[in-house]
């Protein structure tokens, strides 16, 4: 049986890990302000973070929180570790910024530093770079979190040689944002602080709905 061994969820300016809220900021903070506060709370130094667009920052933070107390990165072969992410808006938030930069002939300023983030899988690239993870990649776009798709695809990756996967949802669309990332591993019993849920659709839906957010 393949398992889910840790997860993190970010929503409503709060961060939860394995269902428990570990960080919350003032709900009135903007996304940019919240991301900056959460980065400080995480306590890592990673200068590349500051160059990222909002979606990559959100995905980066969610993955860091999911990984933080685990031995996922040391116990798995990172050449056989997959990253499978999804969302509804693709990279639309940054697409709008790029579009805005070319809308006006008299104020035309397309920038490569923005344009590079107009692909949703750049978030996968940022995670891969941070942790030297070189396995399989896929970025799916679905109307909402598709537990069936993510679980089935992760299973198929494990069947075809992957040993572990970072899987989830990273969405930024206007004022709405949410990230939900779980760490999945091929069956083994050595994981430190693992929560050991079976990798199936019911588990994913359960852990996705587990956090009791503070309102």
């Amino acid at each position, binding site marked *: 049986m393949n398992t889910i061994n840790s997860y993190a969820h970010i929503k409503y300016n709060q961060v939860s890990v394995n269902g428990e809220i570990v960080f919350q900021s003032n709900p009135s903070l903007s996304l940019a302000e919240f991301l900056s506060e959460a980065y400080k709370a995480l306590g890592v130094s990673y200068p590349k973070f500051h160059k990222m667009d909002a979606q990559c920052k959100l995905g980066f933070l969610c993955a860091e929180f999911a990984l933080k107390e685990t031995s996922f990165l040391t116990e798995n072969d990172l050449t056989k570790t997959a990253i499978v992410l999804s969302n509804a808006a693709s990279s639309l938030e940054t697409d709008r910024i790029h579009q805005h930069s*070319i809308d006006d002939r008299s104020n035309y300023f397309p920038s490569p530093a923005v*344009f590079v983030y107009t692909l949703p899988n750049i978030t996968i690239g940022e995670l891969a*770079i941070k942790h030297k993870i070189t396995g399989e*990649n896929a970025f799916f776009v679905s*109307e909402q979190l598709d537990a069936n798709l993510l679980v089935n695809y992760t299973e198929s990756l494990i069947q075809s040689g992957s040993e572990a996967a970072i899987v989830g949802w990273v969405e930024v669309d206007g004022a709405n944002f949410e990230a939900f990332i779980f760490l999945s591993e091929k069956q083994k019993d050595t994981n430190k602080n693992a929560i050991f849920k079976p990798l199936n659709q019911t588990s994913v839906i359960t852990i996705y709905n587990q956090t009791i957010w503070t309102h």
Partner: protein
Amino acid sequence: MIFTSCNNIISPLGFSTQENYQAVSNSIIGVKKIKLPFSQDEFCVAKISDDKVQEQLTHIKNAGTHTKLEQLSILSIQDVLNQSGIHPKDNRTLLIYSTTKGNIDILENTYKNIDSKRVYLSVFAKHLQSYFQLAHTPVVLSNACISGILAIIIAKRFIEQGAYDNVLVCGGDILSEFTISGFKSFNALSNEPSKPFDANRVGINLGEAVSTILVTNQKELATPYNTQIVSGVSANDANHISGPSRTGDGLFQCLTQITDKNTNDIGFISAHGTATPFNDEMESIAFDRAGLHTIPVNSLKGYYGHTLGAAGVLETVLSLESMKHHRLIKSEGYETKGVTGNITMIESHQDKNFTSFIKTASGFGGCNAVALFRKI
């Protein structure tokens, strides 16, 4: 065993696979210098003529209610459904749509009577679902320039898992000011037809295309290609978000997993070959490192430009067609070797009997994907 089956290419070179193969066989290229509506400057791009699209619209129900990408996608998918006889409502059939930007021209306010929500890829996909009345919501894959070939690999995996018997893989992207201005800001565009792997290559031409291929476990649908998808993998360089690994690490990782040191029957490699200085250099190093230096290589970007989410599907389809015809297709634009890795370019169309080929792709975000196709 998972087979490749009926397919279609819609591009500046034609509206069917046959028209496209014929054009490429005659060394006709789809890339031209033209003026685009949004600029006084000429751009060297592969654009599908509006008049030709217009002629095809009679084949589409309520043609005016679809965006350009939707129109082309409907035509391409319809062609494959007609050829294969697969019923779109069939519960064992899935559509995977591969794209980088989908209906991005909606952001440019191109359309008056189109729901702007269709700029969302999931809404775009549901529009196609409702047009064809597909049993399942399409799966959308948006993984930069490897999307097309990765979608074919994913189709194979889904069928192997037992969930489906048939997966239609459709890849599409259109020319837009959005992508042209972005690649221009990177200084990545060539003002002349691009020259993959050549010493004088300076960058890419953008192109638009939609291509569809049926992936199936139904042996009776395997004709006339009689080709199976042997294996496919993706890997990340974990190096840089917009530049490839200098040592071709991710592509090398894919190639070593795919070829398993048995390269005897590989007729050629259909490379990504965008004609940017860094990409082609990286690919040559990866091919060389993987011991593939004697295997002939082509890039089809010289004919079609870079068609982004369509590229992996289109280039696979054309490669299948070339294997069927026992022909190697010339790598258009190549004259003088301009990469440091030891590789063998296909410098003219030539007859050759072979039974397998490799398709590769690499893209922003450090992603790479490779698949191996072999005759059964």
